């Protein structure tokens, strides 16, 4: 039992190592900028700013849990905004436009999963290619221009609403994180998905349908990414055909940061939330301190590298 206690303790220290780093960052900003950073209003602000990133990161986490990568999440987010906005402009009722867009995104993701699972392709290359195709399709939808004219007001409702003091995107983020966490930790599907990622051959041998799990993982990933794009367009009141591309790399940075907050180093939903929060708070704090954006990028990149290196060192030489 002492061994188990020690194990749990080591796990806690590891998990809290990343949390502690986040708290330290907050503390530094709070000291440097007590009146702008360390306010409740700013905290609410941050929760809205990171919502889109968290959604994409959570989607990426599902695919990473299955041992694959989806490089098309940025393109899926772009598609989400443009397609939903365009449909709304064309007069389709907004709820229907959103539902249709989400369904299209999910079908795209499931196609990715089918290609990867059925033909045993490298997901890296497959999703790079399908993502490029999707980006071209999105561009074609608008002839490359931004959709902002005649967007009905209902479309911007969710992105700009505030309920019980929290912005709409923050509510969506909280719901999606909660559901994804339950899915991954409390259902057979989530456990089997982790098994596929941990040892695909072993999972297959005991009867797990590996392909079906990959299809669903990619499908849900694209669904959430598309949703992030819709939400972003709703927030901004406009949609650009490359509007979601910027979420792609930070989402993976967040997921990798999150992996460092787990004792076995596996991708997990709360970790990705933590990672996205770290990135978001850094961006927010540095902006408040008037740090130029190029320097922000350099600091953010350095922190991700440092976290990953730190995890490798602390995990020791044993795999």
């Amino acid at each position, binding site marked *: *039992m002492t*061994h*188990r206690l020690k*194990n749990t303790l080591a796990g806690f220290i590891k998990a809290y190592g990343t949390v502690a780093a986040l708290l330290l960052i907050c503390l530094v900003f709070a000291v440097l900028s007590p009146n702008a950073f360390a306010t409740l209003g700013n905290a609410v602000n941050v929760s809205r700013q990171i919502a889109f990133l968290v959604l994409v990161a959570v989607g990426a986490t599902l695919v990473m849990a299955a041992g694959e990568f989806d490089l098309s999440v940025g393109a899926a987010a772009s598609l989400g905004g443009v397609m939903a906005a365009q449909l709304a402009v064309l007069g389709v009722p907004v709820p229907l436009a959103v539902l249709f867009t989400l369904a299209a995104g999910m079908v795209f993701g499931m196609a990715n999963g089918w290609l990867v699972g059925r033909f045993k392709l490298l997901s890296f290359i497959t999703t790079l290619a399908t993502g490029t195709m999707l980006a071209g399709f999105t561009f074609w939808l608008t002839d490359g221009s931004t959709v902002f004219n005649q967007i009905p007001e209902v479309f911007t409702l969710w992105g700009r609403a505030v309920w019980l003091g929290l912005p709409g995107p923050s509510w969506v983020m909280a719901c999606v994180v909660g559901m994804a966490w*339950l899915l991954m930790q*409390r*259902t*057979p599907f989530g*456990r*089997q998905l*982790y*098994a596929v990622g*941990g*040892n695909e*051959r*072993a*999972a*297959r*041998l*005991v*009867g*797990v*349908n590996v392909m079906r799990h990959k299809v669903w993982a990619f499908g849900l990933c694209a669904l959430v990414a598309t949703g992030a794009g819709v939400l972003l367009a709703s927030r901004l009141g406009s949609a650009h055909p490359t509007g979601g591309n910027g979420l792609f790399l930070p989402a993976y940075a967040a997921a990798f940061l999150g992996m460092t907050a787990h004792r*076995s*180093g*596996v991708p997990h939903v709360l970790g990705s939330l933590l990672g996205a929060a770290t990135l978001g708070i850094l961006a927010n704090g540095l902006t408040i301190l008037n740090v130029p954006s190029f320097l922000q990028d350099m600091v953010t990149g350095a922190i991700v590298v440092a976290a990953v290196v730190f995890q490798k060192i602390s995990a020791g030489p044993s*795999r």
Partner: protein
Amino acid sequence: MAVGSIACNGDGCELETASLQALMGALLQTLAAVPAALLEVRGVSKAFSGVAALSDVSLTLAAAEVHAVIGENGAGKSTLIHVLTGAQPADAGSLHLQGRHYAAASPAEAAARGVAVVHQDPQLVGSLSALDNLFIGQKFPRLPGLGRWLMDRAAMRQRAVEACTEAGLDFDVRALLDSLVGELSVTQRTQLALLRCLMSAPELLILDEPTAALTSTDAQLLLSQMDALRRRGKAVLFVSHRLDEVLQIADRITVLRNGSRVATVPARGQTAASLIAAMSGQAEAPLMSSPNAVRSARLPAKLLEIKQASTADGRLRAADLTLHAGELLGLYGLAGSGRTELLELLVGLRAGRADALSAHGQEVRVNSPQAAVARAWVLIPEDRRGHALVPGMRVRDNLTLPFLRRFASLRGFGWLSLRRERAAAVTAMKSLNIKATGPDQSVLELSGGNQQKVVFARALAMRTGQQAQVLLCDEPTQAVDVSTRRAIHQLLREHCARGGAAVVVSSDLSEMLELAQRVVVLREGVTVADLSGPNLTAPEVLRWCFALPQAPAHADTTRAR
């Protein structure tokens, strides 16, 4: 000489010289009797986690000698090669090469001392040309002057052809230098691997089962090349399962058994039968005792039957297997005979064809592991970390993975009850006495034996209701401790006594004879014998493995169909 001249003064001079001469004469005689030893292995031992793989093995290799090393699976041949080539250091003993101490710490060091090895599966890069493969890891000839950093392909080509002629290899290397290795035939690859070894002009060449994948005509080419090398004064260590080839080419034969050297004999005068007797260590095996004698009384139902199974890669060509309820069947064959492939075909992990595959007498199709699991055919794979367990997960995740839906609401599609799942894991751990700090310990932290128990506990728990479960065990006791080995034997016997059935593949023939009531022998992808009762003896099993031509009178009755 200095000693002689000092002693040589006064009266004693003549006497001293005479005794010196006698001494020299005796010395010369001794030297003449023992051929100049190129390699001397003295008392080498090697153990893996307490299990001896080689114990106190000595042998000598002379220049211009082909020395064969033979033995059953697990006799220590591979370990001996590893020690000789520096892949694994010996625990005890010493090696001398050309009179100098030899302790290669790496294959590169062995190569530098003139020891080269051709493995059964030639280590070549398929996507590169034959010419490039010859020079990988060696110094490339370079162009003169400013072209120093470019390869001189013309010089490479010339060196390859020269090496071929020098070694007296009778094949046209020029024709295949520009082909990609992936496009070459097995024979051509073996030739290429041999030539690559010879380019470093080794004194000792080790051939590890070089003919295993070759047809007999192609094997003859290799044998004649070995003869050519011998005439050029090279020493060849030849490891092979093919006794006819060993008898044809070898000067001397060393027989290993259970890691010890049993004998080193001149090949002349030996027969395949005498070699098998030496390998198995018994002229006649004792009758094996069946722990479940009751079973023979009733006629058991056929749980599984496969006929004429084959795979596209030819590793399995015509394998038959019938398994009855309550039966513990052994499947034996030399390495590469298709044992693992047959098990993997049965559980749908490997694509292949079979004339008929039936369960309970009804024809079935099993083309995916899911279909196999649904029929309660479960594979216990040989590589438990690589193929059976999910290393990053806890013990309990690994235990309950196949049947997680049992613990979920909404007929398996809702939430998991972690409490019930954990309880099931604890029960499974108790039933097999798995030693762990608890169900939440990482499975990688368990000992090898306990990891294997996790795999077995999981397999047994996969059974639902009254299903008669078939366990297909590939080397189930490999690298586990003695008590776990006993526990697994006990578990398999109990499983069969309950009406289940098991197929056990083991390289350990004595274990198989102890465990199984019937043994099916595979040779080169074909089932060649089905032995039980008085015919089930070690020499008999080995005789079928090695395809001895002369068959005793009762052979027809024991042969499969």
